[in-house]
């Protein structure tokens, strides 16, 4: 029994120590960066509304989601990366019948707000195994919040507007990045070692490559092409 308590105490102390070191990893000498570009050669078309055959007229115009975002992440992260226990906050807006951003990458424990900016109701829900939820219907100016505790991929929809969808990618480590409008990304604070790095785009891993961060750190360039 005493041995167990000592072991647990030791693990906790080591955990706290590594967490403290980890939160400042980006500034720590000897860590590296992975940077590059994801070249999406064939952008997936945004989902259309179902043909409104029973409608009495054209539907109200909506925004088209930006489907150019990809997520680059480490498949194999250092063990201590999993000890980061911060609870940051994320946000996916509902604006002109579109989720903005279309892709949100977060760490486990993140609280994500889903504010409604439209004058109509929305009903955010997900039936994904990673996180199943239904926020119900709420009006403009109101918001619902979901905490994501399990790593995985969560597809988010609106129960009222079937063409609205978004992705939430939940990671148990902080080594990931979402590409900008030019497809560029940068992952900082990566400890020395050899890693598998994957590019994810619209529901699936498109390419996995291996890179090595040297003990001296530095930046490694890694580009992906999504056909």
């Amino acid at each position: 029994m005493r041995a167990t308590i000592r072991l647990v105490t030791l693990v906790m102390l080591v955990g706290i120590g590594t967490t403290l070191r980890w939160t400042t990893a980006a500034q720590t000498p000897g860590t590296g960066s992975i940077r590059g570009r994801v070249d999406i050669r064939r952008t997936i078309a945004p989902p259309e509304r179902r043909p409104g055959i029973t409608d009495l007229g054209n539907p109200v115009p909506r925004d088209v989601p930006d489907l150019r975002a990809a997520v680059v992440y480490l498949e194999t992260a250092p063990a201590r990366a999993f000890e980061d226990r911060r609870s940051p906050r994320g946000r996916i807006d509902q604006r002109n019948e579109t989720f903005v951003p279309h892709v949100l990458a977060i760490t486990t424990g993140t609280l994500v707000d889903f504010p409604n900016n439209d004058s109509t109701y929305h009903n955010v829900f997900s039936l994904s195994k990673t996180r199943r939820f239904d926020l119900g219907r709420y009006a403009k100016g109101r918001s619902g919040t979901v905490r994501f505790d399990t790593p995985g991929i969560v597809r988010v929809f609106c129960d009222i507007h079937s063409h609205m969808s978004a992705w939430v990618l939940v990671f148990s480590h902080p080594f990931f990045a979402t590409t900008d409008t030019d497809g560029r990304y940068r992952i900082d604070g990566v400890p020395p070692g050899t890693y598998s790095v994957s590019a994810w785009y619209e529901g699936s891993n498109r390419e996995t490559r291996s890179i090595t961060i040297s003990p001296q750190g530095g930046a490694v360039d890694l580009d992906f092409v999504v056909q």
Partner: protein
Amino acid sequence: MKVTSVALAVVFTSCGLATTAAAQTIPSEPVTLGDGRVVIGGDVAVSFAPEDESYFNYSSYDHNTLRELRLGMTALVRATERISLLGELRTENADTISPYGLYARIRPFPKRRFDVQIGRIPPTFGRFPRQAYSRDNPLIGYPLAYQYLTSLRANALPATADDLLRMRGRGWLSSFNVGDTTPEHGVPLVNSLSWDTGIQVTHGWDLLTVTGAVTTGSVSNPRVSEDNGGKQIATRAEVRPLAGLVIGSSFARGEFVSRHAASAAGARDASFDQRADGLDLEYSRSHWLLRGDAVLSRWHVPMVGDTASVSGGMSTHAPAYVAALRALALSVEGRYTFLPGAYAAARVEHLGFNRITGSRGPQEWDAPVKRVEIGGGYYLQRNLVARVSWQHNDRETSRFNRGRYVSGQLLFWF
């Protein structure tokens, strides 16, 4: 037997679809072609229930709505910035494939919510007819006002009040001796399963949407081709005073009795109409959705008044009087989502009729019906839902006066 086989095949196909959908190999969203100019959607509904021996759930297509296979495919073609073509092909119980809707939608002023629709257009009257096909109906059964068959027909007429009263509660196979004497189903108050042909204009503002239409048939009897020379005028106004609240008001008036039936009743140049008024309300908030619906329909039907003057479906003299037949349907339904992807729903309804005087005194011209349906659904995936419901019906007749059914349904759409 054939229907059962097809239904089973579709169930297995649907299960297969469910599995493959998880692997993202079948469409969960509409299929787009031609750079978004063509959008195709579809839905499959397989419903199971015991035989409805009291015919409470039969529709104008002679199908039990709790026990059918329905396949539908809808398409939108964006011809120009201002003109779209829309259509729906549908088959029920694998009988025939028919174009239930086929029309052009024109937006003459692209920046204004002003649309003109021409062809076989969606119903203007009421809320339910435009929600009948998909997951918007929280239960398997349809509301009485939009499905239940009264004994009244557009192509056949009772000679006397007694002839009409004899058909009380027999709308699934109604038979009269003036006009078409072949036994056939009657009409519902509002037919949600068949679309009328004509032109429809809709103008929308922030809180208000107004629609007007001129069509060939009437709300009970939508038609592609003319059968009485008259037109129907239908209007609908929808107000959204606050988020989640929609109040709708509808009106329709159209010629109802066919020219042949009117002539057979000795009223060659007269017209006999149907008028309908509707009020509906929808309120939703959080995990609740509540709806209320009232439909009042009035038909004017010529009565020969003397069975002896009718021979071979034709009357030898002019109608003795015009009967004003009224029906009022009231419905309240609610849905509550109690878990992500799981909901419970209920609907309570009443359909009543005005009294007419026969040889046995005053009596409702058709048998009043009460219906309660309780059910729920579980989403196996976003576009595949399994539903069950229990439905209880009471009809004020001496025979076929009660029906209780447990039904199940698989509904898939993309």
